[in-house]
């Protein structure tokens, strides 16, 4: 097997006496959509934060394309092709949708120590922004302030921002969070499209979506990976059913 795009090796992160990430190892192959599921408090967001560089692990390594990025700051990882979306929408509310996305494109178009030319008139950046907005189906909302967009639209902008940096790996932290039924369906469709272009790590609570999308699923419980495999294997796994208890029927009922 070729070198995986993302390799996480025996990652450990403690908060006081609690081991939030307990010897987690997993890898994501190029082109794969790898979902991470687990009950609340399983340490999913803690894990994601260590992948993005917002939190340092106590031991273990994270490597991207064979390069050790365990202790690189967030902005350097981004330059290496790692983009993320936030669980709680995190955008520049007083900027337009196009500005939000164009800034992501700008971050990857050399340094921004340019003080004189009007950045909103740089065709390359604007075109990249519109292409990404078009990709998520929001081209018609480009000039609207993000603070005036709906929650669903903001989730889509999050994706467009991540896409505009032309990432190799997309870390999506609960992209369906708070979306209505139709919005969720649209998001699943969109992810179906995107996965053809970019590798994705998807953290998500929406089980039907996860099982519809994922190539592989890792199940995180109390900071530990208790199972990892394709959707069929995970659905059949007894440990997983036990961990989810009440939620087990959701897993089995699908398909």
């Amino acid at each position, binding site marked *: 097997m070729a070198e995986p795009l993302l390799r996480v090796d025996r990652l450990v992160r403690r908060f006081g006496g609690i081991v939030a990430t307990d010897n987690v190892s997993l890898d994501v192959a190029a082109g794969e959509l790898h979902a991470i599921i687990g009950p609340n408090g399983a340490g999913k967001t803690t894990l994601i934060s260590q992948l993005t560089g917002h939190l340092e692990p106590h031991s273990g390594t994270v490597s991207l394309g064979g390069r050790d990025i365990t202790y690189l*700051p967030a*902005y350097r990882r981004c330059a290496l092709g790692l*983009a993320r979306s936030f669980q709680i929408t995190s955008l520049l509310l007083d900027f337009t949708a196009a500005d939000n996305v164009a800034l*992501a494109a*700008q971050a990857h178009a050399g340094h*921004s*120590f340019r003080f004189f*030319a009007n950045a909103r008139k740089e065709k390359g950046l604007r075109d990249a922004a519109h292409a990404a907005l078009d990709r998520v189906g929001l081209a018609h909302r480009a000039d609207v302030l993000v603070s005036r967009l709906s929650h669903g639209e903001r989730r889509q902008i999050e994706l467009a921002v991540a896409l505009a940096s032309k990432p190799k790996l997309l870390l999506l932290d609960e992209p369906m969070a708070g979306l209505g039924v139709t919005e969720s369906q649209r998001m699943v469709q969109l992810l179906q499209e995107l996965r053809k272009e970019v590798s994705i790590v998807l953290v998500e609570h929406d089980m039907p979506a996860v099982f519809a999308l994922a190539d592989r699923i890792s199940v995180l419980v109390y900071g530990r990976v208790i199972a990892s495999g394709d959707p069929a294997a995970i659905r059949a796994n007894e440990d997983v059913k036990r961990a989810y208890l009440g939620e087990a029927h959701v897993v089995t009922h699908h398909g």
Partner: protein
Amino acid sequence: MKAFTVSKAVTALLVVGLVLLPLYSQASGNIFILTLFTRIIILALAAASLNLIMGFGGMMSFGHAAYLGIGGYAVGMLAQEGIGSGFIQFPVALAASATYALVIGALSLRTRGVYFIMITLAFAQMAYYVASGLARYGGDDGLTVYKRSDFSGLVNLSNRTQFYYLCLACLFAMIFLIWRVVNSRFGLVLQGLRSNEQRMQAIGFPSKRYQLVCFVISGTMCGLAGALLANNTDFVSPAMMYWTRSGDLMVMVILGGMGTLFGPVIGAVVYLLLEEFLSQLTEYWALIMGPLLLLIVLFGRGGIMGLLGRLNRG
């Protein structure tokens, strides 16, 4: 064409008024108004520079008066040592302010929020006490600048009208520069950081670097104001950088409208005119000034510029 707005009309009126003021002063023989407005323009320049980091950059610097002092002392000390040329004094004033901003910024930007306010304040107070201790340059009593900066006949700073126009030109040039900067790549990053720093880091911007450069640009601009101020008052003293002066500058920015181009200018004009006229009316002018400022800040979110903007929408 952009639509006509009340705030644009007021800004245009202000600009025309400032340009024509010396003509009025000459015609009416009112020299005092020219001197007063020279001071207003210099402090407006300082407020505009503070607005760059505070309004556009979201960094609440509470030690901005330090640059007024550094720029001023650069002129005063060089004049004292017999170096009267403005071509030396002004570049030294700017370089000293930039260096100070670089060091202070690098240290202060490690903190956030209220700590950032406190640490910038602390550094400015340090500068204040250092100046008080400069026995050779007057210490606590300050230093008289016997001769204004000499620009070899290019402009004569001792001529009231010429000096006024020099200050006005500096103000307009800096506002033009700020306008270009805030709309540039750099400016968008800066405002993005004000809006959501975590997001900006996640899309790949090293935030501190951009904030530090902004800190230095702002400090250098304020150093220019300091050099002009020393020429205006023919005197420099530690009081130029006392923390209340930093507070005055903050009030001007907030009063006029943070994050707007001409807000700080309007803020400076209104604040200093109010101070001037209220203090002629009564010794207890601060009793009127305080509540007045409170009302404007409370009811006019976004300062005077914000108020004018809402007026337009009816």
